[in-house]
């Protein structure tokens, strides 16, 4: 059966064979999450994705959002899917049932959301940001804030947003100037201008709850003086009914490269001196609060990129199986040789296999992180909790920075496989590339992710997180080393891990030396090689399972799937890791040229 969004066999493989998500159901918290229910969630989510979200992907792109008299009109084609998505309870799959969630594991949420994003990642920005705002309210809200807002946000009845960015404050959130003044009644009056705010204003929901970063009068400069506020677009009365509109005005929306169905709004707060909000959490602790939620928000971006990549891969794969062009290289000079499907050409196969290994490796990494979060939630052992928290902290920049880079590369191959048709709007490849591109930028650019990884995460607890991770990878290598036929692949991954360890050690030292700038010039390449090694780990772990199934109990139908798993890691170890190794050499050389070249020597003046 031709699939266009996610490969169901592979999704099930990762969920139930690699991650064993259904094992979580032995814990009280997830006792309803048995395998049958989880599979039904994936199936029914797919139905909704294919029948409702997917058709609105192209439609929303062409329609875009309209800005009229301070109001933003979301694409007409998003209306019905939003209603169905919201009423179906999909906005907060993993949240507390008490607050309108469904109490499911995070891992299954990522699997369902992957499919929704593959169908329509632009649409998904509405519920995903809403969910993110809900998480902040859940974690830092007072009882009153929760009772006023949380259920309506978690169920998607109201929208939610994140207001960080300002003209002068993008990557450097500490530079924000939006201000907050405390009123006698305990509320705050907020004044300032925010830009690029996704879903900042729209008509899919009757209200929108903005989570706003601002500075309380007299607060310390920089990141230490930032507070977080809840600012409803329409004020909510104590009895939960809607009151007066708040003084939050959309002054325009951006015209952009992709994700046309989601408005990027400029918002003016308190232009008439009447924008009221309530403090969320403590004064001057706003950025810490945001950072606590940042892991999950960044993982969400990783899921979004994965969605684009898997869709691009499957579209390209289906196309390559049908499009006939050119003769087999082996047909020699035979003028009568038939044209073959392009999947038969080695160069097309190379690209398809490249797409396959990244899509599958990324899928495993994302679900793995979902599982880490779930295990953290159910574990009653502090050390274990700390271990999972550490893995999530460490790997989040990979799951955002590396994953989105590679997902975009996958979408780029996706266009190439289609040839000229890939560039034409009648086919989905070009839109997937355009829509995917934003994931490398928001929630912290990938440059910022790389700095976070090298500058903060790597050195955390004296590098313990990183060495723990290498320990986890070693476990898989050991298993693979014991499986007849996989020894060579295990050795290939091990070699890469050893070199990564060495590279990390040298770079970490350099990062705190007078040569820090030289080290940080290679932060992004270092994130990339780390990501490559993690991909090889995930693919090797898949192969260990596949190899066991092939040797014991694979059904006839499953054989090509499992054999494909072994081919994937073979390709990665033989064709990609050598390049990774070369990149590590380049990092180790730590060329000073990047830092030393004079600004004026770049030319252009």
């Amino acid at each position: 059966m031709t699939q266009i969004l996610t490969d169901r066999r592979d999704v099930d493989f990762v969920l139930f064979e690699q991650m064993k998500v259904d094992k979580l159901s032995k814990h009280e918290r997830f006792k309803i999450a048995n395998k049958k229910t989880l599979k039904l969630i994936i199936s029914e989510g797919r139905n909704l994705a294919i029948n409702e979200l997917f058709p609105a992907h192209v439609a929303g792109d062409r329609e875009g959002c309209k800005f009229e008299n301070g109001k933003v009109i979301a694409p007409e084609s998003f209306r019905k899917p939003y209603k169905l998505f919201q009423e179906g309870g999909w906005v907060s799959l993993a949240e507390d049932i008490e607050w309108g969630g469904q109490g499911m594991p995070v891992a299954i949420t990522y699997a369902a959301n992957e499919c929704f994003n593959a169908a329509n990642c632009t649409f998904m920005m509405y519920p995903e940001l809403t969910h993110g705002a809900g998480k902040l309210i859940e974690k830092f809200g007072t009882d009153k804030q929760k009772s006023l807002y949380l259920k309506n946000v978690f169920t998607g009845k109201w929208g939610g947003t994140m207001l960080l960015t300002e003209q002068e404050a993008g990557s450097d959130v500490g530079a924000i100037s939006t201000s907050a003044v405390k009123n006698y009644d305990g509320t705050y009056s907020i004044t300032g201008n925010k830009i690029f705010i996704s879903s900042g204003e729209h008509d899919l929901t009757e209200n929108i709850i903005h989570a706003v970063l601002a500075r309380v009068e007299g607060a310390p400069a920089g990141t230490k003086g930032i507070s977080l506020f809840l600012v409803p677009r329409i004020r909510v009365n104590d009895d939960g009914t809607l009151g007066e509109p708040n003084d939050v005005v959309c002054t325009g929306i951006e015209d952009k490269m992709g994700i046309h169905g989601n408005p990027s709004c400029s918002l003016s707060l308190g232009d008439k001196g009447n924008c009221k909000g309530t403090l969320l959490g403590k004064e001057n602790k706003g950025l810490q609060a945001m950072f606590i939620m940042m892991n999950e928000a960044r993982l969400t971006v990783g899921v979004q990129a994965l969605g684009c990549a898997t869709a691009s891969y499957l579209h390209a794969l289906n196309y390559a199986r049908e499009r006939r062009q050119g003769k087999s290289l082996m047909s020699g000079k035979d003028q009568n040789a038939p044209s073959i499907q392009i999947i038969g050409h080695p160069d097309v196969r190379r690209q398809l296999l490249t797409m396959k290994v990244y899509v599958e490796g990324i899928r495993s990494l994302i679900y793995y992180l979902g599982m880490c979060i779930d295990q953290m939630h159910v574990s009653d052992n502090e050390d274990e909790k700390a271990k999972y928290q550490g893995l999530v902290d460490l790997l989040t920049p990979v799951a955002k920075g590396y994953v989105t880079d590679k997902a975009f590369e996958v979408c780029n191959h996706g266009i190439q496989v289609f040839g000229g048709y890939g560039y034409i709007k009648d086919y989905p490849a070009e839109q997937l590339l355009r829509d995917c591109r934003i994931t490398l930028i928001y929630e912290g650019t990938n440059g910022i992710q790389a700095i976070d990884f090298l500058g903060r995460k790597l050195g955390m607890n004296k590098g313990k997180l990183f060495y723990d991770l290498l320990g986890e990878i070693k476990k898989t290598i050991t298993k693979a080393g014991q499986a007849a036929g996989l020894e060579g692949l295990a050795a290939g991954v091990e070699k890469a891990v050893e070199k990564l360890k060495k590279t990390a050690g040298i770079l970490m030292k350099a990062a705190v030396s007078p040569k820090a700038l030289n080290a940080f010039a290679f932060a992004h390449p270092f994130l990339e090689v780390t990501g490559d090694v993690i991909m090889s780990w995930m693919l090797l772990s898949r192969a260990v399972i596949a190899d066991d199934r092939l040797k014991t109990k694979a059904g006839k139908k499953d054989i090509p799937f499992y054999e494909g798993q072994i081919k994937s890691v073979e390709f990665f170890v033989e064709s990609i890791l050598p390049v990774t190794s070369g990149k590590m050499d380049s990092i180790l050389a730590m060329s000073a040229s990047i830092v030393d070249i004079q600004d004026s020597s770049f030319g252009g003046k």
Partner: protein
Amino acid sequence: MNIIVCLKQVPDTEAQIKIAGDAKSIVTDDIKWVMNPYDEFGVEEALKTKEKFGGEVTVIGLGPKRVTETIRTALAMGADKGILICDDAADGSDSIAVAKALAAAIKGMEYDLIFTGQRGVDDDLGVVGASVAEFLDIPQLSLIEDVEFAEDGKSVKVKRPVEGEVLTIESSLPVLITTQKGLNEPRYASLPGIMKAKKKPLDQKTLSDLGLDASDFGEGARKLKIVELLSPPARSAGKIIEGESPQEKAAELARLLHEEAKLL
């Protein structure tokens, strides 16, 4: 009001159908199985009716174990109970035999209304609904695109399209209704519905549980035999009519319709 919906599991309408080596069946390896779309209308109508009048919705399917997935989907949509008639001896039965088994399962139950699809989208026979009604000796209203109950829930008024007109029919209950496109828009399973589905009863029955004789079922007992399955002929390329002026092209079209297609 107690309502029964008969469900068939069919290949997804987008699945590429391949004929198997025996030329009498299809290759099922790669197929994604879904609920017959006409049966989805039945489930939706049953749920709407239950929401208005109360009662219970039971879904019944016949087929291999995988049909439980389709039944669970109906339970997740909101149906209360499921029954799967699952028996190797029933494999390969024709429509009349399937109807006989469904009717036997329904016979002992209390019901006011039965929905079946007007046909399965796989072999398009449209026999099961009428046959079940016949075996149960109740009226059948076929190809219905609108259902309206009397306030007291004792009778039903339905609409059936006929040759561009609409026929309105009234019937007492119990009655069997076969659903036509346009009847409603089936709901999606909601997440709370999915969680509840797990706890809902799903009984599995064999032919002998239903007091049926296995020899009346299966390939051997078919009254309707499939002789051969053929793929539709590949469509030949279209023809673009050339000509200097519209008049000239029209004349050429008329000539072709007359001489080549022999339609005029």
